[in-house]
């Protein structure tokens, strides 16, 4: 085993330890995992009824996805300039529930609340440019019946690497449930940072 192998082994062990320990260190209802290839953290709630998973996406990945749809370069660049998460929401309850991301807030360390940019705003902007595309992004407000779920990109105007707490909520019947996922972060500009 040479020096390179040793370094690789150390790196692998570090990643394995992080993957093992981070979920246990997750706050309350949140499971934190690390992508062993990118080293990026992702977050998944453990709430019984409303399941939320957020995976930070590198700007280059976002460019590749939107570029593959044949969208104009300015559209691709505009989306990739945002802090983007691969987002999965699932109704695990035995009754319908709904969410509205327009009420969610990304709160940075300076206390400023940043709203998500809703899909409808992107779609309207594209429509004004004559672009009919309306996929890949997760719709900002939906009602999910039992077993329904969705996945897509969500966007917030924050610089790469920004740390924040996510204040999110959902409705079941006449009840509104509010939760916080602390110490989240946007993906860095590149993995080299």
């Amino acid at each position: 085993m040479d020096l390179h192998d040793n370094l690789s082994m150390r790196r692998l062990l570090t990643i394995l330890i992080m993957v093992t320990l981070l979920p246990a260190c997750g706050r309350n209802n949140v499971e934190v995992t690390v992508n062993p290839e990118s080293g990026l953290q992702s977050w998944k709630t453990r709430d019984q009824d409303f399941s939320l998973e957020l995976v930070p996406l590198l700007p280059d990945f976002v460019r590749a996805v939107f570029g593959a749809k044949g969208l104009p370069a300015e559209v691709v660049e505009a989306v990739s300039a945002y802090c983007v998460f691969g987002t999965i929401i699932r109704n695990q309850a035995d009754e319908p529930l709904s969410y509205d991301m327009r009420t969610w807030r990304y709160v940075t360390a300076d206390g400023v609340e940043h709203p998500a940019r809703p899909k409808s705003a992107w779609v309207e902007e594209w429509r004004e440019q004559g672009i009919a595309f309306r996929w890949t992004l997760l719709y900002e407000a939906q009602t999910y019946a039992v077993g329904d779920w969705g996945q897509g990109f969500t966007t917030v105007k924050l610089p790469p690497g920004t740390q924040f707490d996510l204040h999110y909520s959902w409705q079941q019947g006449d009840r509104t449930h509010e939760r916080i996922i602390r110490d989240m972060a946007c993906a860095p500009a590149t993995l080299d940072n």
Partner: protein
Amino acid sequence: MNASSGIWPVRLPRSITSALLLCLGWLAMPLPAAEEIPTLSTTLTAVDPVEAPDFTLSDMDETTHTLSDLRGNYVLVNFWATWCPPCRKEMPSLESLYQQYRERSFRVLAVNQWENPDHVFSYMGELDVFPSFPILFDPKSEVSERYGVRGLPTSFIIDPQGRIIYRAIGGREFNHPDVTTLIESLLGKGS
């Protein structure tokens, strides 16, 4: 701008398209690797019956299909795209369901979004089982918009009178007993 006019302006050889698709598959890995795609659900939601918007769309062979021509059958309309991981995951089970009930007044129409036939044909070649139900193309997403589809995949079951009676948002395991029991019960009513 739409898929037919701006996205795929040149007809690429299928081998090149396949290679591009493989590359895109790799690009898609960091988001939800295949094993990380959430488990498919098994329930469909009954909705108040409402007339299904009619449509006429072309398949990969440019043969047109009109929904209202299928009156008298139960029709599962599935809105999907190849870039959508849960759409890909549920497709084999949709074929399985279709094979199980195709002789009993049950039809499937898979309505692709924002892609062209060459692209989708290459994707189909990568599947273990080539879907035998019609793959239709809605390149400007006009039909999905009329159905109020907000995300992919979304599926509807339409009754023999042409009314939407069930809906599913998100991927489903269509050959699960929960679904087949439902289809059996619907077909039993119709017989």
